[in-house]
């Protein structure tokens, strides 16, 4: 396997009044060529921030990259000058966003918005861009693309809008596509179609993908490997099979139990009690301790390290460490 992106010790901090919020607090992540990696976690756990830090879409007025590297093709993306970053964004790493309607500019036509990325990164002439635009629209399954070119975003359905965004992401044949909750804003029936499309892009074009979602069902279907994030750190990482059959972290366990099942005849749905708390730098306890059913005194006294096993599986939990020590 060829490694295409290597993130080491990524720290992205938000400066709020009088305090620093460690949105991402030391994340390591490797993306292999052609794989589809899932990042899961609740809202506010830092998964989008990881993606946005890598692609340089953070608002520098209140966010800073406090440390780490993200090496892609010999370049550290976290410390690239803006001009060079612009050459990578869209051309070599592109992104699909959560809300398709608000992610398209309301005053420009579909054609304009798709060809814009071609104008930025290629020297195609008008005719070539037009042809490529239609080709891309066909590729992402927009019926009768010629008749849609002059449409404005509000004239398309949510699913079609998301297909347009995917077409934009695909336009320059990037090496990596980051999809940030690509189906969250869509109807369930449309979700399946869009996921299918994303998977076929991953398989047919061999593009490496990072799929960010809070939906365990989606990662189970789509991804080979999963990173579970909580409170700005990775709490568990492993293959989809490992994560689903033998979760090691209580948070992963909770996420899996929260998936509603038809076979389950219990009336009440399971949910992890509480919400993601706001952490302030520096953090000196297990971040999940406040909501963990197995929490003990030691859990609040220091932060557990991320243990990496021989097969590459990772977990960050004192309870697991104790179990291992007892064996």
């Amino acid at each position: 396997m060829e490694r295409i992106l290597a993130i080491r010790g990524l720290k992205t901090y938000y400066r709020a009044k009088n305090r620093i919020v460690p949105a991402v607090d030391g994340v390591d992540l490797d993306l292999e060529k052609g794989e589809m990696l899932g990042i899961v976690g609740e809202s506010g756990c830092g998964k989008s921030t990881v993606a946005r830090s890598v692609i340089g879409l953070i608002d520098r007025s209140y966010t800073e990259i406090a440390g780490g590297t993200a090496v892609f093709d010999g370049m550290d993306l976290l410390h690239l000058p803006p001009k060079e970053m612009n050459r990578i964004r869209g051309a070599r790493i592109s992104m699909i966003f959560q809300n398709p309607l608000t992610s398209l500019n309301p005053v420009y036509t579909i054609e304009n918005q798709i060809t814009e990325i071609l104008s930025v990164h290629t020297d195609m002439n008008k005719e070539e861009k037009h042809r490529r635009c239609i080709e891309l629209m066909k590729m992402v399954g927009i019926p009768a693309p010629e008749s849609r070119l002059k449409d404005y975003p509000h004239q398309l359905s949510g699913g079609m809008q998301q297909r347009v965004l995917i077409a934009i992401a695909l336009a320059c044949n990037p090496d990596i596509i980051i999809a940030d909750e690509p189906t969250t804003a869509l109807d369930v029936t449309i979700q399946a179609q869009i996921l299918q499309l994303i998977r076929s892009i991953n398989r047919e074009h061999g593009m490496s993908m990072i799929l960010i979602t809070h939906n365990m069902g989606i990662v189970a279907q789509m991804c080979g490997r999963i990173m579970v994030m909580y409170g700005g750190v990775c709490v568990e990482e492993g293959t989809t099979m490992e994560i689903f059959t033998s979760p090691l972290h209580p948070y992963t366990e909770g996420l899996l139990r929260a998936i509603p099942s038809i076979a389950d005849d219990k009336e009440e749905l399971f949910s992890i009690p509480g919400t993601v708390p706001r952490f302030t730098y520096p953090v000196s306890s297990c971040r999940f301790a406040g909501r963990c059913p197995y929490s003990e005194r030691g859990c609040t006294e220091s932060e557990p390290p991320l243990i990496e096993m021989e097969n590459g599986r990772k977990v960050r939990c004192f309870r697991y460490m104790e179990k291992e020590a007892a064996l």
Partner: protein
Amino acid sequence: MLKYLVKRLLKAAVTIFFILTLVFFFTRLSGDPTDWILPDDATEEQRIEMRHSLGLDKPLIEQYGDVLLSLFTGDAGRSYNYLRPVSELYAERMGATVRLGLISFALAAAVGVTLGTVAAVKRNSFFDRFTIMLSVAGSTLPNFVLGILLVFLFCFVLRLLPSGGEDGALSYIMPVIAMAVAPMANIARLTRTSLLDVLRQDYLDSARAKGVPEHTVLIKHALRNALIPVITVIGLQLGTLVGGSVVVETVFSWPGIGSLLINGAKMRDYPIVIYGVMLISVAVTVMNTIVDLSYSLLDPRIRDNA
């Protein structure tokens, strides 16, 4: 689109008709014009004869009919004081007003949009705070007060600029400033607010994700959207600009239609007043209609609903 245009124009015609009616009755309520035209010691017979020659002895409804008719014939009568057709008088003075108005408007729009944009991009900076302060001051200071202050400073104290009249480029400086400051302040404030709102939108991030350079993101994606509401305000400012010209022209003895109208009102010169108000209301209505149409050109979402 055509249907929409016809509807707009019909509405505009109705508006102008109402304004005309209102002005007609207001002028007739303002008193007897012969007080001004004839010397104080004129006899009652002379006054009656004068009223007859001006057509003021006809029944009110007939006079009203004549005024309405004049809309279609184009003959709006003669000024009581200048004894010349009012259309001729206005035609002579129109140029000065249009020149002053256009220059002021162009300045207000260009500077207002620029200030608002820079303030929004550099939010909370010193420049931003300074712009907010300036725009509050600018929009609250009445143009005639500003005009008088300018005359005092540049004319009496510094002796740099002529106090009035249209005579060369220098004579434009003060009237243009007096006219432009208020609309400029409003445009700056609105551009800032609107752009701040747009700067939070997701589609800017998707443009950045395409690799579009930041200045293109700002101008092509952000400003294009932010200016949609600003255009409406600019259009409304055009109306105030025309109204403001009446006052500013008086302060600076500008030889335009504003000062003609004011003098007409003072002398109960009915045809001058009616024709002047007509001109201004037609101009404002036409400009508002143009703004309305441009609005739907700028925003495709409105185009579909129109």
